[in-house]
């Protein structure tokens, strides 16, 4: 038995998880690689969860001389991540399946299976850091600002966090690639995957439609800020708050989606000012430790490609919270709102609504 205990590494066949496994071997852990089979596209040989990816992961495991297994998580993934993805889009919201997957599959089912294999630790190739503070494990941003993935991990739970290692969280991406090169890992130059694994970029609408046979999608109308119909659309699942392209409306000024009403099938559009928000309210809050007090100055991140912005916690009640910030734009319900104290993730929740700038002062927002 190794001096640092057994760690099960989630190996996708990508460079980050491959280097993670290699670093743990170097550090003296008893490393076991597991590839998670999440989804399958019967047609595809490449892409996420494909035979090619598993083959790459297997080659890396062989190179590192560690045991490697493919394990099936398709049922959990479909029941939680995919079902949520389809349901959210159909309700006019914008889901984040990667956060849901981390919450329901990677740091839940995967952690369970790892413990069945006698693991004391699990590890992933996420760009995030765990620090063990006086009050327990803390989640910090990865040091590479372009690659930081702490946003996707806010709801992983402190119990799982305390047992998780992020071996590349303190590295820059190019350092990770250089390490892969140095170790001769066969995936050193493999391109990054930045897509939703089961619905590659540009295909989410078709995916939602294909998964919606039981409950057909209805077309609807596009209206302006006054409610005047200015176009038609093929379903609210095609839109996200702040979206500018693909509206199917010709206009002399840029138009953005400002509201989506899934019941009436109404998509409202307006100019750039109309997507500004004075804050947001979120539900299903998860805190990695004590929630911040009302009035706390924090930073908030409202989608994956968004630099955290200054905000103030204005209410915390049960699993809901609100923040005020004058720096939020295109607050999309369904996305994760993650609360940071500097570089540290305090927790977060799921956006229910933006607080419209014009209503904020009047306090007319129902939470």
């Amino acid at each position: 038995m190794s001096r640092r205990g057994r760690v099960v590494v989630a190996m996708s066949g990508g460079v980050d998880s491959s280097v993670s496994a290699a670093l743990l071997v170097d550090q003296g852990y008893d490393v076991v690689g597991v590839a998670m089979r999440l989804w399958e596209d019967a047609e595809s040989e490449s892409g996420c969860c494909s035979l090619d990816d598993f083959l790459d992961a297997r080659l890396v495991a062989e190179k590192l001389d560690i045991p490697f297994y493919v394990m099936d998580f398709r049922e959990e993934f479909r029941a939680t991540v995919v079902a949520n993805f389809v349901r959210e889009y159909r309700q006019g919201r914008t889901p984040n399946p990667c956060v849901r997957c981390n919450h329901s599959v990677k740091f839940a089912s995967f952690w369970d299976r790892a413990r069945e294999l006698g693991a004391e630790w699990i590890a992933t190739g996420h760009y995030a850091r765990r620090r063990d503070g006086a009050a327990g494990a803390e989640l910090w941003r990865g040091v590479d600002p372009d690659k930081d993935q702490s946003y996707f991990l806010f709801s992983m739970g402190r119990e799982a966090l305390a047992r998780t290692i992020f071996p590349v969280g303190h590295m820059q991406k190019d350092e990770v690639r250089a390490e892969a090169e140095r170790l001769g890992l066969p995936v050193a130059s493999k391109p990054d995957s930045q897509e939703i694994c089961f619905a590659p970029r540009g295909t989410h609408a078709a995916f939602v439609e294909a998964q919606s046979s039981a409950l057909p999608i209805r077309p609807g109308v596009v209206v302006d800020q006054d409610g005047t119909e200015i176009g038609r659309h093929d379903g609210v699942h095609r839109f996200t708050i702040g979206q500018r392209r693909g509206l199917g409306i010709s206009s002399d000024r840029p138009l953005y989606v400002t509201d989506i009403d899934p019941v009436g099938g109404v998509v409202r559009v307006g100019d750039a000012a109309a997507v500004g928000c004075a804050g947001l309210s979120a539900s299903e809050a998860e805190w990695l430790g004590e929630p911040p007090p009302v009035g706390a100055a924090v930073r908030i991140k409202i989608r994956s490609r968004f630099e955290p912005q200054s905000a103030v916690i204005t209410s915390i009640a049960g699993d809901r919270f609100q923040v005020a910030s004058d720096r939020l734009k295109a607050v999309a319900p369904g996305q994760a709102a993650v609360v940071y104290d500097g570089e540290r993730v305090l927790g977060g929740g799921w956006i229910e609504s933006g607080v419209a700038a014009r209503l904020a002062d009047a306090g007319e927002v129902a939470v």
Partner: protein
Amino acid sequence: MIYLDYNATAPLLQPARDAMAAAQDEFGNASSAYAQGRRARAVLEGARRDLAEIAGVQPRDICFTSGGTESNNAALFGTIEPASAHEIVLAPHDHSSVVESARELERRGAKLRWLPVDAAGRVAAAAVAEAISESTRLVSVGWANNEIGTIQDCQAIAELCRDRGVAFHSDAVQGFGKVSMQLPDADLISITAHKLGGPKGIGALVRRRDVELRPLLFGGSQERGWRPGTENVVGAAGFAAAALAARDAGAWTDALRERLWRALEPIAGVERYSPAANCLPNTLLVGFAGLRGESVVAALDLEGVAVSVGSACAAGSGEPSHVLRALGYDDERARCAVRFSSGRATTADEIDRAGEIVATVVARMRAALEPAAAAGGAA
């Protein structure tokens, strides 16, 4: 390491290794006219004669193939003309190389009639009689099931197929050598070398009667035109030597299987899928309630015990065993399946140690999940 996955494959036996080493020197093409060719031919035909004698068939009945999968494909694709709506009567829990060949034929126009199987994996001869219709061209029922181990009454099925004038194919890949060295009385029989301790890459389709059979491959007259391609002389030599060694080792007994079951039986939540009678003597398929087979297999591998969730041809697919589903088990229970299959070299001591390790691993796996359950699960 304790190897208990003999139904996946077996280590190469020394006599097979020796026979192959000797055959390697005969590099000639067995179909060539000159001396080197004749010597290679002599090795090939000697292997065919030995194998035929051991299996209780005629040498001319044996058509060497690349293995069980090819033999099963050749039997189905060779007898069925898809466009003519020929019907195949078959068992849903047979090996995927039978079942998937049949499904492909169905996509091309053939009709399939699936036989009912009971919870122990048995096919009743009466059910076969009932399933055969005017358009039935082939009945295919495996001799012994690779996952659950159930042995079918092929004699009864063979007799009724003959009465009805329908060709009968039996996949005997697992049965050959474990049920008996004497092949069942089917018209077409698939066997393979590596399950017996021979080399991988060679098997045979045995054709006992003049069943009309079209080849899968074209372009040569080797194997009487049934299976063109330069003959695998080395493989054939290894196959025959392994079969001889298997015959000389004598009949199997159920002793190790039942010894293992006695060790596993006290484990909480264990379920035995393999029947106690009419079952391969080396095969024990069990499940541990609440634990996925793939996790148990991984955990045992980490402790040096090599077992399988079922057929290696389906391993890694993550699909619950099609065998157990065909037997009426729900997905949850089918996912629990873990197959232990011993070999001639397996010792009672290995079985005892494996039993202890399984008990320890299963207990540890269950304990690992308990604190989380008490705390409401990992977030």
